[in-house]
């Protein structure tokens, strides 16, 4: 093997597969120039990490981004791409044959939207609490229904809080549960219609069911089985 700088860089970065790694190690053991280069690359890398400036975001930027996102969320043209997607579907002539699916699809898309928005915008919960007796009364006056709030900590899904969101043309309750480092959003609103469904979208699992006159949607990036367990825990009568 000849001295090749980029392989030594990749070796220092621990980016080589075991066989290439082994070859480089063999070579370094016998080639003083390359061993020197390896040491130089590693030292300079550490120096850059330690001494070159890492530009943290100033507080004023944090505030202005927050303000811009809030203004955007409150704006009227909230999801212009939804209109685009609908137009494309219409043009394809698909919309008539799959109307109810399309409605459910759009709802699922809105659910995903709300979930991602809450993560990016940093507004996971409006009422952070693991106590259902704090979360449920908080919804009073904010919704035209009273969602049932269950504590599922014993099942491995501790409650993190709740928020109010706007989905499918109405205000809905969102209960946020935790599973390890992941969030599960549970959307609830009164509705009689709709059966069970399950979709994968943008890397999230979305489960839908109807129970006791409430339409329920659960979304998370946890494993599908875990989310199904979550659904079963929600549906189980206490």
């Amino acid at each position, binding site marked *: 093997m000849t001295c090749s700088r980029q392989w030594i860089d990749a070796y220092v*970065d621990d980016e080589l597969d075991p066989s290439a790694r082994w070859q480089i190690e063999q070579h370094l053991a016998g080639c003083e120039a390359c061993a020197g280069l390896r040491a130089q690359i590693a030292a*300079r890398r550490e*120096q850059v*990490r330690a001494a070159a400036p*890492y530009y943290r975001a100033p507080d004023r930027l944090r505030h202005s981004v927050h303000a*811009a996102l809030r203004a955007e969320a409150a704006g009227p043209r909230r999801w*212009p791409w939804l209109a685009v997607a609908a137009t494309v579907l219409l043009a394809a002539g698909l919309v008539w044959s799959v109307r109810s699916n399309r409605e459910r699809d759009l709802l699922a898309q809105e659910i995903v939207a709300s979930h991602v928005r809450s*993560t*990016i915008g940093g507004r996971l919960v409006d009422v952070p609490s693991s106590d259902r007796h704090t979360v449920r009364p908080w919804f009073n006056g904010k919704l035209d229904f009273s969602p049932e709030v269950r504590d599922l900590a014993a099942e491995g899904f501790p409650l993190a809080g709740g928020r109010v969101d706007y989905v499918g043309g109405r205000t809905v309750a969102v209960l946020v549960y935790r599973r390890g480092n992941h969030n599960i959003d549970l959307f609830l609103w009164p509705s009689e219609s709709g059966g069970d469904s399950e979709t994968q979208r943008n890397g999230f699992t979305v489960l839908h069911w109807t129970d006791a006159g409430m339409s329920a949607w659960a979304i998370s990036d946890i494993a599908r089985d875990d989310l199904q367990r979550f659904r079963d825990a929600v549906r189980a009568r206490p």
Partner: protein
Amino acid sequence: MLPHLDAAHNLARWLARSAPDAEDIVQESYLRAFRFFEGYHGGDSRSWLLTVVRNTFLTWRKREERSLANVPLDEERHGIAPAPSAADSEGEAEALRGCIEALPPEFREVLILREFEELPYREIAEIASLPTGTVMSRLSRARQRLEDCVRKKVAAR
């Protein structure tokens, strides 16, 4: 809480080499991310946001270049190349900063993503829309250039 804001700002700041421009780019990036999150297909959200920052920077640079069509040299506009006398009093951090900023942007971005964010080559490849092999060779060349530049500065003292 805004996730990955420091990482987004650090990348934008190194790419744009100007504090106010970096802040504009970050702000625009978060709005874009917010509006077009359907481009997010799961996976590492930091990588995804950094991709948005990089693309926003490219759009911003194109716009800048159009409006500054008669000022061809980036370096002149930003005053990157320091006078030789300045090198004497430069600290280590200042020498590194100057040398990283002097790298061509395509080298600079892989270096920043690797050294500061410590991203694996595969993720850098996704962010910069490059084959992984190209990330490997670019990073290596970026480090080589940085090494030469820093040595030159030290020798000039």
